[in-house]
């Protein structure tokens, strides 16, 4: 019985944090907060968050008065209208907002394009074909769009094969 009581009286940190939302004088939580500084700090943060949310909201339950119904009737009588917030949103504002978010992405893209252009311009035309080794030109000329092997290519390839067979 004593063991059961002590089990009921204490909660772990995880359970205590689950109790934060329904706190308001929960004895088990209070006991835990007194013994655990870390949870006490977390609860303080949680409580402040809740107070900030409460402070930013209306302090009392607002009830519509006679003026509200009169104004609503007048508004309806004026006919459908665009909500003021939507009307305020000009294309320029929307563009500015999007552009601001896209600036880093656009900068990276610009750098990539510049880099690629520089690299491309550095390579002389046909350099990629010249870089192909003679053996590849001989072996794969019929499979890929490589330039036809020259007599020197064939000889060089044969020498390379012979050297490999001789273990050089």
């Amino acid at each position, binding site marked *: 019985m004593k063991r059961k009581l002590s089990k009921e009286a204490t909660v772990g940190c995880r359970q205590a944090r689950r109790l934060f939302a329904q706190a308001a004088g929960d004895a088990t939580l209070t006991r835990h907060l007194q013994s655990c500084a870390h949870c006490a700090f977390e609860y303080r943060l949680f409580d402040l968050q809740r107070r900030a949310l409460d402070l930013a909201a*209306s302090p009392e339950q*607002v009830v519509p008065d006679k003026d509200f119904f009169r104004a609503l009737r007048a508004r309806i009588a004026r006919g459908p209208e665009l*909500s003021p917030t939507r009307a305020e949103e000009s294309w320029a504002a929307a563009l500015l907002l999007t552009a601001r978010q896209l600036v880093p992405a656009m900068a990276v893209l610009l750098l990539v394009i510049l880099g690629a252009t520089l690299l491309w311009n550095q390579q002389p035309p046909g350099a990629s074909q010249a870089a192909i080794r003679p053996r590849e030109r001989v072996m794969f000329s019929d499979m890929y769009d490589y330039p036809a092997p020259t007599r020197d290519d064939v000889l060089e390839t044969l020498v390379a094969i012979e050297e490999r067979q001789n273990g050089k």
Partner: protein
Amino acid sequence: MNVDNPNAHSTVRQAVVDEQFDHLAEEHAPTPDETARARDEDELIRRSLARDGDAFEALVRRHSSRVFSIVGSFFRRRDMIDDIAQEVFAKAYFSLGTFTLGRSFEAWVAKITVNACYDHLRAQRRRIEQQWAHETQKEDEWFELQMFEVAQERHASAERQRDAAEIAERLLAKLDPEDRLVVVLIDRDGFSVKEVSEMTGWGQSKVKVRAFRARRVLRAAMKRLVLSGERMQRSKKK
């Protein structure tokens, strides 16, 4: 209301909202009273569609507390709350033709309300950004500390409370409007993820992600406040 309990107000609000939203939270078989009410409501909607102003006013009276309650969770100024609520009901009146009879009018109006609040939060954030763009980080921190001090006072004067509310508003304005919408509905008003998902039209995972992000931002802001508050108290003692 318990004056000593700082959460008493939100607890009462919570109870009011819970009462209004109970039927949304659980899908249950309607009682005879509910059926009669729904039939009555459908009749009011039909009459409103036929441009019967009194019928629509009856609908507004029936659902105004819920609309005002949602709007009041995001905005503090009475004139602003009135204006947004008017906008909601005007929108509802002009798009009544798109409402499917037999479905929950209350849920439909709540959706319009949440969307209107979202639009206003976005507009407000833009205004606040422009207004405070010139303020330095130090000024920002000073304002936040003021709020922290008032939030810790259990019996702060009305004027101090008003100042603190303004600063809390600045703090919340740092949140993305979508994040703010979700965290207020879930953490302040006690709606479930599913209910918020229905009201906003966003997926449940999006709602969860938004709530998580907002809580993380708020927690970081509060941690900064608590630590600076403690530093300030230590320096005062010295």
